């Protein structure tokens, strides 16, 4: 995982955050992500994020569940072990519909949860860098990715002028890595953190 340099700006108001996001984007900076304490309506749109494809994955998992259930149960009851149940035909579709439905839901639900965890890079023993602990409390934390040419001081000043209450520069892994929080060993140098 590559270490990257980020400029972090913290906002304490949604109404300030939205114009700031717009300005930062139009100025040509690349926003890595915005961490918020709760889901903010319209923020994904303001950030220009593309529509998630999680539901497409869900549809595929659902179809997989449907066909698994249908093929499995129809093979068992018509080929492998036909039973006479209440004089019903061996291919007793209405009786199977609840099972087919359940398996569809099960596959879709479990599959989507796992896919969601993968997309968000969440798993047991996975560590991620927290840019600001108060992002889970009351701060909206905007993280901007730096390039070689980024002047961090200018950028910090720019964020402050757009209403950031706190800014700093951090070097962090942008991906995910394995580790445990109770044995907190830093896999990267983090000496550049300076409170503004």
């Amino acid at each position, binding site marked *: 995982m590559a270490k990257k340099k980020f400029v972090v700006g913290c906002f304490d108001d949604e109404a300030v955050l939205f114009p700031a996001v717009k300005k930062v984007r139009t100025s040509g900076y690349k926003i890595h992500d915005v961490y918020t304490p709760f889901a903010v309506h319209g923020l994904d749109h303001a950030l220009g994020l593309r529509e998630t494809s999680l539901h497409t994955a869900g549809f595929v998992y659902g179809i997989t569940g449907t066909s698994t259930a249908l093929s499995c149960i129809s093979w068992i009851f018509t080929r492998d072990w036909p039973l006479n149940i209440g*004089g019903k035909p061996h291919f007793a579709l*209405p*009786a199977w519909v*609840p099972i087919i439905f359940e398996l569809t839901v099960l596959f879709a639900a479990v599959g989507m949860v796992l896919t969601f965890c993968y997309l968000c890079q969440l798993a047991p023993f996975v560590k991620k860098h927290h840019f600001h602990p108060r992002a889970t409390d009351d701060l909206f934390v905007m993280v901007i990715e730096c390039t070689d040419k980024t002047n961090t001081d200018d950028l910090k000043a720019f964020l402050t002028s757009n209403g950031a209450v706190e800014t700093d520069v951090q070097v962090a892994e942008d991906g995910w890595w394995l580790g445990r929080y109770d044995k907190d060993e830093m896999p990267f140098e983090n000496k550049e953190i300076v409170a503004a």
Partner: protein
Amino acid sequence: MASIKTQFEIPGKMKTWSYALIGVGLVALIAGLVIKGFSSDEHEQTIFWGTLMYNTIFWTLVCNASMFFICVTTMAMGGWQQSFRRIPEAISTMVPIFGAITFAVLIYVVVGHKHHIYHWLDSEAVANDPILKGKAGFLNPVFFIVWTTLTIGLWSILGWRMRQLSSEADEVPMDAEKGASFIWRNTIRAALFTVWFALTVGSTVPWLWMMSIDAHWYSTMYSWYTFASSFVSGMSLIALWVIYLKNKGYLELTSQEHLHDIGKFMFAFSIFWTYLWFSQYMLIWYANIPEETVYFKHRVQGPYKGIFFLNLIINFLCPLLILMKRSAKRNYTLVTFMAVLIIFGHWIDFYQMIMGSLSKEHVTLGWLDFGILSLFVGMMILGVGKALTKKPLVPKYHPFLKESVIHQV
């Protein structure tokens, strides 16, 4: 808000079309009355009155579903529907009119002693039939007439009170205190309507009006099934009017976001309808008791086979596969197409629910059915159009209007 067009005017084309549809419908009605209604053949009479019954009941319930939509969203403190709430309100103004027609038809059937439609009207048959005797407390002319009067009367009155309250949002700006009291009074009136709705469409009325045609047979799912059918068509009707008004340049505050949520209702309640359809079907299929399978025998294996499965394709498979995608629910053309398809599908559903029991040997779907349908569509277009002109399209001082304007899905 000065630039927003809030006053609807009926376009000439709409008037022409609705009068044409009503004209066609009246011709069909009169022809039907002469050919079938006054026929010496009891069966022909039954078909005529049955056709009137399912059309009147269907359109009354569909229009009433609009008021139910307003009431439940009000009680849920919903804000998103405010920018187009005058449309379901206008649709629900048809309830007294269609209700009166339904009332007239049903009362004629009962008082006119049409025992080919309601077998329980035949007192001699009831006296010799332990099952019908057991149901006589519910299935008798007096209870039928009283309950039908109460049902239609209270739907009209409670709906009217709800609409009347809505007009307050046009008059003066509300401060926090006034707004809170306005919302509270809305909640009370919505709750009253919803309770009455649950006691009627949610339970007794479909049993009384429709299920009692098969006087021996019963299904506790039946009322919910009817409710799901009428509610999903009601949402489709709201969608059609919203899209129509958008196309005419009204409802600037209503956007794809609102259409998306209406589309979700259409999608979700199509699935809900199927759930009830299947629950009713599977239990009877599994138990395989002749007393119960009698309802499905001629529908699944007899002449109604085609309509029965077409019903399932139109009302389940099409909404499931077409409306599933987010982009489909935000596409005006696709939602229009699906709304028309769903209304037609549930009209067919009502057709097989009533006519499937009245004419077991032959499918009677023909000129009379489509003629009466055109009569009701024409009346609906004209009536809703007229009701829309009477109030501004946007309740501009409603406390939740802003929530609707910034609504995002």
